[in-house]
């Protein structure tokens, strides 16, 4: 087992969220590997195939829920405002990318973008947005 060292920079809501996210990622990896293996080996059909295909999405839905619960639990309004701003920025970035990709795909210029990658793409855009903001703040300082 691993453990998180108590970090004074993290408040109680943040620590709870980090634990939930780590747990859900672990569950996601195990469930995804298990379901992929089961589909390949047993070649299920009908309801079984539907459920095995659906199962890996549940930990990710849980992660989205955990993020929402964290936002509600975060009592520091500045941190909450920064987080929400980064989420909206990441969402805008993701919408821009998927819109451009969709038209390119429609024209046959690129391959199909699997929709299950939408959440990881948003998470990446969310992270990029936060990195960009940190750089902007270090260079010149900007508002939350």
């Amino acid at each position, binding site marked *: 087992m691993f453990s998180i060292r108590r970090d004074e920079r993290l*408040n109680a809501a943040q620590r709870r969220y980090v634990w939930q996210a780590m747990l859900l990622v672990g569950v996601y990896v195990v469930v995804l590997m298990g379901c992929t293996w089961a589909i390949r080996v047993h070649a299920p059909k009908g309801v079984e195939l539907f459920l095995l295909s659906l199962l890996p999405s549940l930990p990710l839905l849980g992660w989205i829920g955990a993020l929402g619960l964290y936002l509600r639990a975060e*009592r*520091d*309004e*500045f*941190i909450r*405002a920064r987080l929400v701003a980064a989420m909206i920025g990441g969402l805008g970035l993701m919408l821009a990318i998927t819109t451009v990709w969709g038209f390119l795909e429609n024209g046959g210029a690129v391959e199909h973008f699997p929709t299950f990658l939408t959440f990881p793409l948003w998470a990446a855009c969310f992270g990029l947005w936060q990195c960009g903001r940190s750089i902007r*703040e270090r260079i010149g*300082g*900007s*508002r*939350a």
Partner: protein
Amino acid sequence: MNNHLRDLRTTRGWSQQELGERLEVSRQSVNAIETGRYDPSLPLAFRIAELFGLAIEDVFVSPSKEN
């Protein structure tokens, strides 16, 4: 929004961390408010003013009165 938070805090000899603990917010929040990067909500502005025993307008400068 300009404010006198840094002066008020240093006059009492508090660090940003100490002020944050008294207000139940992070040190980053205190820093952002002091430097004018973040305008606090009305409830937090009241908490800040009440902590120093002042009126809100004695802590925060009205944007209409800024140069």
